[in-house]
Protein backbone atom coordinates (compact mmCIF):
# COMPACT_ATOMS: atom_id res chain seq x y z
CA UNK A 1 0.00 0.00 0.00
CA UNK A 2 1.04 3.57 -0.55
CA UNK A 3 2.28 5.76 2.27
CA UNK A 4 3.46 9.34 2.46
CA UNK A 5 5.98 10.67 4.92
CA UNK A 6 6.34 14.33 5.70
CA UNK A 7 8.69 15.88 8.23
CA UNK A 8 9.19 17.60 10.53
CA UNK A 9 5.76 17.79 12.16
CA UNK A 10 6.48 21.11 13.83
CA UNK A 11 9.06 23.78 13.11
CA UNK A 12 9.81 27.18 14.62
CA UNK A 13 12.21 29.27 12.58
CA UNK A 14 13.46 32.87 12.86
CA UNK A 15 12.77 35.41 10.15
CA UNK A 16 15.48 35.32 7.49
CA UNK A 17 16.49 31.72 8.12
CA UNK A 18 16.35 29.03 5.40
CA UNK A 19 13.72 26.32 5.16
CA UNK A 20 13.67 22.76 3.90
CA UNK A 21 10.62 20.53 4.21
CA UNK A 22 10.81 17.02 2.85
CA UNK A 23 8.17 14.63 1.63
CA UNK A 24 8.55 11.07 0.36
CA UNK A 25 6.03 8.62 -1.03
CA UNK A 26 6.31 4.84 -0.86
CA UNK A 27 4.48 2.13 -2.74
CA UNK A 28 3.87 3.86 -6.06
CA UNK A 29 5.86 4.93 -9.08
CA UNK A 30 5.82 8.26 -10.91
CA UNK A 31 3.35 9.93 -8.57
CA UNK A 32 2.12 13.46 -9.02
CA UNK A 33 3.37 15.44 -6.03
CA UNK A 34 1.95 18.57 -4.45
CA UNK A 35 2.74 21.19 -1.81
CA UNK A 36 -0.20 23.00 -0.26
CA UNK A 37 -0.32 25.64 2.47
CA UNK A 38 -3.23 26.12 4.82
CA UNK A 39 -3.68 29.33 6.79
CA UNK A 40 -5.79 29.25 9.96
CA UNK A 41 -9.47 28.91 9.08
CA UNK A 42 -8.75 28.91 5.38
CA UNK A 43 -8.80 26.36 2.60
CA UNK A 44 -5.77 24.74 1.07
CA UNK A 45 -3.71 26.91 -1.27
CA UNK A 46 -1.77 25.01 -3.93
CA UNK A 47 1.87 26.15 -3.98
CA UNK A 48 3.61 23.71 -6.33
CA UNK A 49 2.83 20.54 -8.19
CA UNK A 50 4.99 18.12 -10.14
CA UNK A 51 3.87 15.51 -12.65
CA UNK A 52 7.38 14.22 -13.28
CA UNK A 53 10.91 14.48 -12.01
CA UNK A 54 11.77 17.48 -14.23
CA UNK A 55 8.33 19.07 -14.25
CA UNK A 56 7.46 21.43 -11.41
CA UNK A 57 4.77 24.06 -11.73
CA UNK A 58 4.50 27.05 -9.43
CA UNK A 59 1.04 28.33 -8.63
CA UNK A 60 1.76 31.33 -6.45
CA UNK A 61 4.80 33.61 -6.91
CA UNK A 62 6.39 33.94 -3.51
CA UNK A 63 9.35 33.32 -1.31
CA UNK A 64 9.33 29.53 -1.77
CA UNK A 65 10.69 27.01 -4.26
CA UNK A 66 10.27 23.29 -4.81
CA UNK A 67 12.52 20.55 -6.10
CA UNK A 68 12.08 16.88 -6.94
CA UNK A 69 15.49 15.20 -6.68
CA UNK A 70 14.02 11.69 -6.96
CA UNK A 71 10.80 10.25 -8.38
CA UNK A 72 9.12 9.97 -4.99
CA UNK A 73 10.74 12.86 -3.13
CA UNK A 74 9.50 16.42 -3.06
CA UNK A 75 11.22 19.25 -1.20
CA UNK A 76 9.92 22.70 -0.33
CA UNK A 77 12.58 25.33 0.31
CA UNK A 78 13.13 28.94 1.11
CA UNK A 79 16.38 30.91 1.31
CA UNK A 80 15.00 33.51 3.72
CA UNK A 81 11.76 33.02 5.62
CA UNK A 82 9.24 35.80 6.11
CA UNK A 83 6.67 36.10 8.89
CA UNK A 84 3.98 35.56 6.27
CA UNK A 85 5.41 32.11 5.49
CA UNK A 86 3.93 30.78 8.74
CA UNK A 87 1.26 28.16 8.20
CA UNK A 88 0.42 24.50 7.90
CA UNK A 89 2.25 22.90 4.97
CA UNK A 90 0.89 19.75 3.42
CA UNK A 91 2.43 17.38 0.91
CA UNK A 92 0.19 15.18 -1.20
CA UNK A 93 0.40 12.63 -4.00
CA UNK A 94 -1.85 11.29 -6.71
CA UNK A 95 -1.48 8.97 -9.67
CA UNK A 96 -2.53 9.70 -13.21
CA UNK A 97 -5.06 12.30 -14.22
CA UNK A 98 -8.44 13.09 -12.70
CA UNK A 99 -7.68 11.30 -9.47
CA UNK A 100 -7.86 12.20 -5.79
CA UNK A 101 -4.83 13.42 -3.88
CA UNK A 102 -3.70 11.79 -0.66
CA UNK A 103 -2.13 13.92 2.02
CA UNK A 104 0.64 13.66 4.55
CA UNK A 105 0.21 14.70 8.14
CA UNK A 106 1.55 18.21 7.58
CA UNK A 107 4.21 20.51 9.02
CA UNK A 108 3.22 23.37 11.29
CA UNK A 109 5.69 26.17 10.51
CA UNK A 110 5.91 29.21 12.76
CA UNK A 111 8.22 32.01 11.70
CA UNK A 112 9.20 34.24 14.62
Amino acid at each position, binding site marked *: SQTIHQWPATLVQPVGSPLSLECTVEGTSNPNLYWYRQAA*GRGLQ*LLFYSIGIDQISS*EVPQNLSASRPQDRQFILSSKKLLLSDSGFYLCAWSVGQ*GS*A*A*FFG*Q*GTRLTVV
Partner: protein
Amino acid sequence: EDQVTQSPEALRLQEGESSSLNCSYTVSGLRGLFWYRQDPGKGPEFLFTLYSAGEEKEKERLKATLTKKESFLHITAPKPEDSATYLCAVQLFLNDYKLSFGAGTTVTVRA
Protein backbone atom coordinates in the same frame (compact mmCIF):
# COMPACT_ATOMS: atom_id res chain seq x y z
CA GLU B 1 -12.54 35.11 -7.36
CA ASP B 2 -13.26 31.96 -5.36
CA GLN B 3 -14.05 28.97 -7.51
CA VAL B 4 -15.36 26.85 -4.66
CA THR B 5 -17.64 28.12 -1.88
CA GLN B 6 -18.63 26.02 1.09
CA SER B 7 -21.50 26.75 3.46
CA PRO B 8 -22.10 27.05 6.27
CA GLU B 9 -18.68 27.91 7.70
CA ALA B 10 -19.55 26.13 10.93
CA LEU B 11 -22.28 23.71 11.93
CA ARG B 12 -23.15 22.59 15.43
CA LEU B 13 -25.30 19.48 15.68
CA GLN B 14 -26.77 17.38 18.40
CA GLU B 15 -25.92 13.70 18.18
CA GLY B 16 -28.47 12.10 15.86
CA GLU B 17 -29.46 15.40 14.21
CA SER B 18 -29.01 14.93 10.47
CA SER B 19 -27.89 17.84 8.30
CA SER B 20 -26.25 18.77 5.00
CA LEU B 21 -23.18 20.72 3.94
CA ASN B 22 -23.06 22.58 0.66
CA CYS B 23 -20.24 23.03 -1.83
CA SER B 24 -20.97 25.26 -4.81
CA TYR B 25 -18.59 25.92 -7.70
CA THR B 26 -18.48 28.55 -10.41
CA VAL B 27 -16.11 26.84 -12.80
CA SER B 28 -17.01 25.17 -16.07
CA GLY B 29 -15.48 22.00 -17.38
CA LEU B 30 -15.64 20.08 -14.11
CA ARG B 31 -13.60 16.88 -14.22
CA GLY B 32 -14.37 15.81 -10.66
CA LEU B 33 -15.43 16.99 -7.24
CA PHE B 34 -13.73 15.62 -4.14
CA TRP B 35 -14.71 15.56 -0.47
CA TYR B 36 -12.21 15.33 2.35
CA ARG B 37 -12.39 15.20 6.12
CA GLN B 38 -9.76 17.01 8.18
CA ASP B 39 -9.19 16.60 11.90
CA PRO B 40 -7.39 19.39 13.82
CA GLY B 41 -3.64 19.37 13.20
CA LYS B 42 -3.87 16.56 10.64
CA GLY B 43 -3.76 16.26 6.88
CA PRO B 44 -7.06 15.89 4.99
CA GLU B 45 -8.42 12.38 4.59
CA PHE B 46 -10.03 11.48 1.27
CA LEU B 47 -13.72 10.57 1.40
CA PHE B 48 -15.36 10.65 -2.05
CA THR B 49 -14.95 11.52 -5.70
CA LEU B 50 -17.96 12.51 -7.82
CA TYR B 51 -17.63 12.86 -11.58
CA SER B 52 -21.07 13.51 -13.02
CA ALA B 53 -24.35 15.19 -12.09
CA GLY B 54 -26.70 12.77 -10.38
CA GLU B 55 -23.90 10.66 -8.96
CA GLU B 56 -24.06 9.66 -5.29
CA LYS B 57 -21.49 8.03 -3.00
CA GLU B 58 -21.97 6.73 0.54
CA LYS B 59 -19.73 5.81 3.42
CA GLU B 60 -21.17 5.00 6.82
CA ARG B 61 -23.20 8.06 7.88
CA LEU B 62 -21.99 10.23 4.99
CA LYS B 63 -23.55 10.57 1.56
CA ALA B 64 -22.27 12.89 -1.15
CA THR B 65 -24.32 14.03 -4.12
CA LEU B 66 -23.51 16.15 -7.17
CA THR B 67 -25.57 18.47 -9.34
CA LYS B 68 -24.43 20.70 -12.18
CA LYS B 69 -23.31 23.53 -9.92
CA GLU B 70 -23.09 22.15 -6.39
CA SER B 71 -22.50 19.18 -4.19
CA PHE B 72 -24.01 18.22 -0.87
CA LEU B 73 -22.53 16.15 1.90
CA HIS B 74 -25.33 14.68 3.97
CA ILE B 75 -24.55 13.51 7.49
CA THR B 76 -27.19 11.13 8.78
CA ALA B 77 -27.60 10.63 12.54
CA PRO B 78 -24.15 12.03 13.29
CA LYS B 79 -22.02 10.92 16.19
CA PRO B 80 -19.40 12.97 18.09
CA GLU B 81 -16.67 11.22 16.13
CA ASP B 82 -18.03 12.86 12.97
CA SER B 83 -16.80 16.20 14.30
CA ALA B 84 -14.23 17.54 11.84
CA THR B 85 -13.74 20.07 9.07
CA TYR B 86 -15.11 18.87 5.75
CA LEU B 87 -13.40 20.19 2.63
CA CYS B 88 -14.50 19.99 -0.95
CA ALA B 89 -12.28 20.47 -3.98
CA VAL B 90 -12.83 20.71 -7.73
CA GLN B 91 -10.70 19.49 -10.58
CA LEU B 92 -11.08 20.75 -14.14
CA PHE B 93 -10.59 19.10 -17.49
CA LEU B 94 -8.37 22.07 -18.30
CA ASN B 95 -5.83 20.81 -15.76
CA ASP B 96 -6.83 17.52 -14.21
CA TYR B 97 -3.77 17.31 -11.99
CA LYS B 98 -4.82 20.20 -9.75
CA LEU B 99 -7.37 20.35 -6.95
CA SER B 100 -8.81 23.72 -5.90
CA PHE B 101 -10.22 23.69 -2.39
CA GLY B 102 -12.99 25.51 -0.60
CA ALA B 103 -12.49 26.93 2.88
CA GLY B 104 -14.34 24.07 4.55
CA THR B 105 -17.23 23.54 6.94
CA THR B 106 -16.37 22.79 10.56
CA VAL B 107 -18.86 20.35 12.03
CA THR B 108 -19.21 19.87 15.78
CA VAL B 109 -21.45 17.09 17.02
CA ARG B 110 -22.44 17.21 20.69
CA ALA B 111 -23.35 14.09 22.63
